[in-house]
């Protein structure tokens, strides 16, 4: 019997986790943003449950600060799969007063937590699948595959359930829920290799394209209607791609000529900067920013 290839082993482990949680949860959902990790998650859900329908809806917490290409891709993919997509919007949370902004143009990334927790309450979800990976960030590296959240949606990193062998305890009391990360053990490079192997479509902004950017704090900030150049900044045209897609106000592209998945894999293998280090302004505010956000219910 041959040993599984490394992608086969990762895939099989993720399928196992998806199936375990579906079996033990009462009402799960899968977070789908249209980004590369959640695209892989959808493929894994197909592998885990076809020929059946998915035993959960797809859920997107929309900041309405997303790139148009990503939202179009999100809707197209859900339709192709013929699965139910639920969208809840941070803008609605702002309209109803659940989220109060200090500045109208501030990043809505952190405010997703409120909208997410409200959606969990609305639908009484008890388990949410997400495409977070442990290689992304040092607080994520500390997280269990199945992460328990209390009735306020909070993570208690000092008191996590032990996770032993391949036995997962997915039980949860009423009002509490689980965040489940089936691709915990995947790296950015694994994700791209899997996208190539499975021939998965991704939004066009992952590939190199010409875009107006400004240099800011050592990163390239995209010039968009939501993020115009600030005083004294010079907008320049560059060949860039996004390594991660998220809230426009805090997601930055990198310089790149990688026009296809093979070229992205080659670039990822030799990069000297992590995915989040190259792309996320919100992680650079303090050495514990991700941990703090997660304790408040962030994914």
């Amino acid at each position: 019997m041959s040993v599984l290839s490394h992608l086969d082993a990762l895939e099989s482990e993720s399928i196992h986790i998806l199936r375990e949680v579906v079996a033990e949860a009462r009402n799960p959902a899968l977070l789908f943003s249209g980004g590369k990790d959640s695209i892989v998650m959808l493929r894994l859900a197909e592998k885990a449950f076809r020929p059946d329908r998915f035993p959960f809806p797809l859920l997107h917490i929309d900041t309405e600060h997303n790139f148009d290409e990503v939202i179009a891709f999100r809707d197209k993919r859900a339709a192709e799969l013929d699965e139910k997509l639920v969208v809840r919007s941070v803008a609605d949370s702002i309209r109803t007063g659940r989220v109060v902004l200090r500045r109208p143009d501030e990043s809505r990334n952190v405010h997703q937590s409120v909208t997410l927790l409200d959606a969990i309450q609305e639908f009484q979800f008890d388990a949410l699948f997400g495409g977070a990976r442990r290689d992304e960030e040092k607080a994520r590296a500390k997280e269990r595959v199945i992460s328990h959240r209390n009735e306020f949606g909070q993570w208690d990193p000092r008191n996590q359930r032990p996770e032993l062998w391949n036995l997962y305890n997915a039980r949860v009391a009423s009002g509490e829920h689980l965040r489940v990360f089936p691709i915990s053990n995947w790296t950015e490079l694994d994700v791209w290799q899997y996208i190539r192997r499975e021939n998965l479509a991704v939004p066009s902004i992952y590939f190199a394209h010409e875009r107006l950017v400004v240099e800011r704090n050592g990163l390239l900030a995209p010039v968009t209607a939501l993020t115009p150049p600030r005083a004294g900044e010079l907008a320049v045209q560059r060949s860039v791609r996004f390594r991660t897609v998220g809230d426009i106000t805090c997601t930055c592209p990198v310089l790149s000529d990688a026009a296809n998945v093979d070229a992205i894999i080659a670039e990822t293998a030799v990069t000297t900067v992590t995915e989040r280090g190259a792309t996320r302004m919100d992680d650079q505010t303090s050495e514990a920013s991700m941990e703090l956000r997660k304790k408040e219910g962030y994914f």
Partner: protein
Amino acid sequence: MTATLTRLPAADTLRVATSGSVDDGKSTLIGRLLYDTKAILADQLAAVARDTSRRGGEGLDLALLTDGLTAEREQGITIDVAYRYFATPRRRFILADTPGHEQYTRNMVTGASQADLAILLVDARHGVVAQTRRHAALVSLLRIPHVTLAVNKMDLVGFDRAVFERVRDEFAALTHSLGFEGVTTIPVSALEGDMVVDRGTRMGWYTGPTLLELLETASTARAALGPFRYPVQLVSRSRYGERADSRGYFGRVENGAVAVGDRVCVWPSGVTAQVAQIVTLDGTLETAGAGRSISLILDRQLDVARGDLITHAGDAPYVTDAFGARLAWLSATPLDPRRTYLVKHGTAVTKARIAAIEDRLDIHTLHPVPGETPLAANDIGRVRIKAARALPLDRYADVRATGSFLLIDEATLATVAAGLIEDLPRG
């Protein structure tokens, strides 16, 4: 070594767990391993340098790479497992950096239960301490295939061979009573890098492998051999193919292998059937080995549900509701023999009672102490369990997947113990 070479994954993956007492330098060792294999990227390095100087230190405090929680950085200790991923041209690694503090032993067990190789660290100045004994006992209990003793902080004892040999012999005496075979002992300085990735120049008297050489050559064969074990996770609601009654049983091969045409038996009912098809989204397979998630289709309609175990017909597990097991108690709330607990075994969950507590391991002598004292946090002891229904069991020593279980507190739903099956009735 170029960055390309270091990060393109090789074919196989070694899972490694570190353990040892507080301040033995585990986080620093992992930081060193990552740094010297060039697995740390520029922005991570810049962050470590920034955080080091913010704390009044100089240069790079490599422990800050893995101690990712605020409380860990404040207290300078590791509280929970951090997972790190890196690759050399020879193989891919998943490193679990586990805590040394006794209070967080549950997190050490979390990191170690999946490991192919355990690195036990000791401080060369202190040698074997109580926590080394506890971790050695857990590593032995979990039957982690490879054990390495890293005698760290050799820089603080002048790279003295006699100090290293004294610690090595002390540990050998300890592991002899635990039944370890083939422990490799390596002198290292995680702080300065000797014998981690590079040999350095100050311990020419040591001729064995460096830590990385050892990690690159340890074997990873697991679960591929032995009896076929397939816990049923879910039953597909769709029907496969033309047969009106062909249900797919979703699951993963946890041990051994299965082939189309094999005669199989479903437990605990004991009914038999033949494997008609092995299905994946990518098509059908003729055989499926350990670790593969599949759908299994049998040649006849049976009452099969989640929690059942499928095996080969001639390779039966023990089906019993009473068995002896070793428990590693992981909860701050002690075992209460008056209560019932949930046992999660494979995909089955059933109620159970602790019928008897037989002994408890004395962590200083590593000998069992007979007596009925309820197990408390971090205790390891032998118990007899009575389950509400019969379960298909194996000894942990024979089949890890069907020889292990969780105990779950019915009230809090927390995982309170790791269970390893030892004693099954004959016949």
